[in-house]
């Protein structure tokens, strides 16, 4: 494939980290429109940090991040708001607003950004909740639901405005295998039918094989990408033994 392709996210020379040193150094990659892109790596390698940079929460130490051709690092005001509407984010723990019902959580973006009548907003929100298997839970408070259900509700909220990109931080962690597989199906169908681009941070190997078009693998000591490509290919043909172990789920000591 043409590496330039139709890149919707373009990261160039990104360095990121906290006061006590850099976690990532000179990282460059591209996410193509409509693909399911998975970021993986061992614990503490900066996956979540990278994600938070991509969505503009942390300013990078160096480098540019272009979302649909616009720089999210330097965008300000109206431009930044327009940019933020191009993607939805599901946070690791859901981050639903505890003082609102599920339906209110999901309708909140519709209420602020569209002029849909209340009944229409409610219907849109209910279809999203139905998509993630939470029909009939609209009047529940987040605290009344299990962790997995909160996560699914968070996905519903992230995609209520049908953004072009969805960032998912550990979507299947804490879900039972069936729900997790259903979630994979949902991700695939949204990607194939709507052309939504997914950027997913996950550890779940079955889910990676099921959904990923392309993965990048980060490493703590390399402070950057050590492998890139299709997961099956990396599993069987990577020249890095650590990468093969990761995909074959082997302990390092064995």
């Amino acid at each position, binding site marked *: 494939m043409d590496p330039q392709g139709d890149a919707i996210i373009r990261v160039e020379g990104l360095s990121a980290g906290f006061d006590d040193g850099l976690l990532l150094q000179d990282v460059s990659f591209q996410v193509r429109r409509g693909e399911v892109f998975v970021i993986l790596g061992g614990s503490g390698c900066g996956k979540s940090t990278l994600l938070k940079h991509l969505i503009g929460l942390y300013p990078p130490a160096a480098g540019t991040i272009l979302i649909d051709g616009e720089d999210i690092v330097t965008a300000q005001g109206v431009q930044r708001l327009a940019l933020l509407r191009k993607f939805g984010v599901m946070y690791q723990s859901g981050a639903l607003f*505890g003082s609102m019902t599920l339906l209110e959580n999901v309708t909140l973006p*519709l209420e602020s950004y*569209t002029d*849909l009548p209340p009944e229409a907003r409610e219907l849109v929100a209910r279809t999203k909740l139905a998509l993630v298997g939470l029909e009939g839970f609209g*009047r529940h408070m987040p605290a009344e639901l299990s962790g997995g259900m909160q996560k699914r509700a968070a996905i519903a909220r992230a995609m209520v405005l*049908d953004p072009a990109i969805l960032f998912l931080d550990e979507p299947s962690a804490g879900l039972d295998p069936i729900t997790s597989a259903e979630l994979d199906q949902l991700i695939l*169908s949204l990607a194939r039918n709507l052309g939504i681009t997914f950027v997913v941070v996950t550890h779940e190997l079955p889910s990676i094989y099921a959904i990923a078009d392309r993965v990048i693998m980060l490493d703590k000591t390399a402070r950057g990408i050590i492998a890139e490509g299709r997961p099956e290919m990396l599993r069987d043909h990577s020249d890095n033994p650590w990468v093969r172990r990761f995909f074959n789920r082997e302990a390092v000591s064995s």
Partner: protein
Amino acid sequence: MTPARLTERREEGGTVLSLGGRLDAYSIAAVWAEARQALVRNATQPITVDAGEVDYCDGAGVALLLDLLRQPRPAGAAVSVRNLAEPYRHLLEPFDPAAFAASARQEAARPSTVERVGRMAADLGRDLWEQVAFVGEGAAAIGAALRHPRRVRWKDALAVAQEAGANALPIVALIAFLMGVILAFQSAVAMRQFGAEIFVANLVGLSLLRELGPLMTAILLAGRSAAAFAAEIGTMKVNEEIDALVTMGLDPVRFLVVTRVLAGLVVAPLLTVFANVIGLVGGGLVMRSFDIPWVTYYRQLTTAADWEDLTGGLIKACVFGVLVAGIGCLRGLQTRTGAAAVGVSTTRAVVSAIVLIVITDGVFAVMFYYLDF
């Protein structure tokens, strides 16, 4: 991209609503109302929604189609959709319009008045029961701590005492100074008409030592520390840290509450002494401006108030300290789940603490009156 549009035309066998353009959440609002009105206008004939000219359709567009499909229609006047492009049909397929027919408002019926009253009574009863149980548990834990003082986590207690006590000095000083000045000034203005300014010292001394010193300190402690205890313990509860303590075999009451209650017991009287001194100095400053020298003010103070007044106030302060710290911890431990619950606990901690302070102060007033203290 063209915005969403809707045209209506008659065809053999019914009305055709032709949808076109881009159906997304931002541009669909106008079409939505129009489409619904078209359905109402043609209530008795079949309607076909022709989606052939749709360029783009996402979740909001699907919701619009679903909304049209779910409307209750008489027999022979059904709504149907045709020509929806392949990828978008996949989006509509998973939904059964009938399932969305009922408004979500009916999902959870509001409980009846009887049920609500019952629940409130049960909540109240449980709260009372928890308070009684907590007082018992706390007393037992403190008893055990006094029998085995080495088991108390003194380092924690000291840290709490520093935060609740030493760090509260500026705000206590500010309020106490204000109380002293206001009391002295307001009474001096009235008493000067009788040439009795000197008796302002009696008023300021007695009311500060016996009542206002301990009371103001306790209320400040409630606002600062009871709230802090409730928020901290409440967040620990939300994060399952309390559960972790329990499964490690550590009693949360002994681990968290005893240290805080002991700190409150020590800190409240110390702060009260400090407040008394600052308040009296404030009063003295006002007296100076009424040409009464420090010495005269001091003499008058010592004849008006004695050690009994001071110790009476300090005993009250000790009790307030224990109550305020205890109620802060209790409200923290009662926290349910979620960020909002921590806020609720903090509010309840401050309100309960102030109510308790007022009630206890009343009890003390009656007690001191009969004891002639």
